[in-house]
């Protein structure tokens, strides 16, 4: 469904992705793990059109999409839930959700999706008229996820959805990610919490300094000794 072939991306003179290839099949949950600065977020930003690749190909259902504008990518059904939540702080919760549905024109569908989001995240309904900047970190993450889903995507990309959240909220976020996937969406998730990411996903890619260094099922990567040493550590398993 989504395929990156030998994609290279640079910020100025710094090359952030060096010939990355990866693939997502319909309905899969795929994790991208790796240390800070490995290029995970860059990969997502390149897919969503915020960054343009220097070389390589990105295809969606076989059609090339590299170099398209973010809105054109979104129109094709790829939503990007960015790192750090990035809710619009001075817009109300309801307005933030409306931003998620900006490109849709089916007002009845938008209204019913809004109700569905409120049913799934009751806290957002309680705070519908409140400025998003006044929400707690966990609530903001729920809002960011709901906002991404409001575009009715086929693929949703989550960038570090657990970052900076309390452990019980992290659990909630991961269960939502699984729920979204069970509903038939394809999910690409970037996570620093490698243990959680690998246990949730069907397949995963391990990135190091702009390259994909390992690929496999979640279980395979969980069991590989180099992943365990570098990203999981003894403590994660002991816990």
């Amino acid at each position, binding site marked *: 469904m989504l395929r990156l072939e030998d994609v290279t991306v640079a910020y100025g003179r710094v090359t952030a992705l060096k010939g990355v290839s990866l693939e997502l099949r319909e309905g899969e949950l795929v994790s991208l793990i790796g240390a800070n600065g490995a290029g995970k977020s860059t990969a997502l930003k390149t897919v969503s059109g*915020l960054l343009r690749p220097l070389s390589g190909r990105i295809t969606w259902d076989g059609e090339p999409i590299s170099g398209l504008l*973010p*809105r054109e990518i979104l129109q094709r059904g790829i939503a990007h839930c960015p790192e750090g939540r990035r809710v*619009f702080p*001075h817009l109300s919760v309801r307005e933030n959700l*409306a*931003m998620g549905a*900006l490109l849709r024109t089916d007002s009845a569908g938008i209204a019913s999706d809004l109700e569905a989001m409120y049913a799934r995240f009751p806290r957002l309904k309680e705070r519908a008229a409140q400025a998003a900047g006044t929400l707690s970190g966990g609530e903001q993450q729920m809002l960011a996820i709901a906002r991404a889903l409001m575009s009715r995507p086929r693929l949703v990309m989550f960038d570090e959805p657990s970052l900076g959240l309390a452990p019980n909220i992290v659990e909630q976020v991961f269960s939502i990610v699984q729920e979204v996937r069970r509903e038939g969406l394809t999910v690409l998730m970037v996570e620093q919490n490698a243990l959680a990411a690998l246990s949730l996903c069907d397949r995963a890619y391990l990135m190091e300094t702009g390259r994909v260094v390992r690929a496999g099922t979640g279980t395979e990567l969980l069991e590989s000794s180099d992943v365990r040493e570098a990203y999981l550590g003894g403590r994660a398993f002991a816990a």
Partner: protein
Amino acid sequence: MDQALQHLVNGTVLGGTYALLGIGLTLIFGVMRVVNFTHGELYAFGAYMAYGLVSLLGLNFYLSLLLAALLGAALGAVIERVLLRPLRGADIDSVMLAMIGAALVLQNASMWAWGGVAKLVPSPFDGMPLVFGPVSVLPLRLFVLGVAVALLLAFWFLLDRTRAGIAMRATFQDPETAALMGVRVAWVGTATFAIGSGLAAAAGALLGPVFMVSPTMGDLVGLKAFAIVILGGLGNLPGAVIGGFALGYVEEFGGGFLSTEYRDAFGFLLIILVLAIRPQGLVAAKERVG
């Protein structure tokens, strides 16, 4: 007391157009982070367009005001596309210099096109004031206030209640995430500058029949627009409305009770006071649009 009431009425009329001038400028700053030195010139442009359409082309007065505002918006869109878009990401000094240059070009162009003699836009309102007890007001001025308030309300509705307005505010808060939601960020820049410019031109066209229209009128008006925006807090829209009315009242009461010659100075005295005591502006708790 009667005299104070009269000044209150006059100050309200003046404040309405000042508010239009202020929200245009503060919107452009809030959304685009551009200090728009052409604002006063767009006001002058609106006034001259109204003059040209009414006096030279003989068009209907109301239609001319509408067209003058739209032409102002169009000129704003051109300035944004030609000057500001190529400078996106440039440092603030370069952008300011470009805008100062554009203001000089606009002012000299209107000098060249219209000559140095002041003009007055003829209006269909007669010169007999309406008298309400101790207060009298010219019908033309009531019309100006009515249109200014209607424009302020329309603008508030656009920004607060429509999808386009939400997208505009979202872009101001986080352009990259707004792009992820499907906003054409570059278009928002053009639309914002056009709307701000259109409001300035509308203010100029509205006051064209009240005050004389001259090529250098944009200088003082531009300064006043900055005064209004500073009073309300940079980028603060309700603040700009309050700042606009505050400036109108201060000028009117200062001019009426203290000194007519120093009328224009009172506003600037007020700014010095506000900057000394409350540098974030009269209303601003924090910087925001909407």
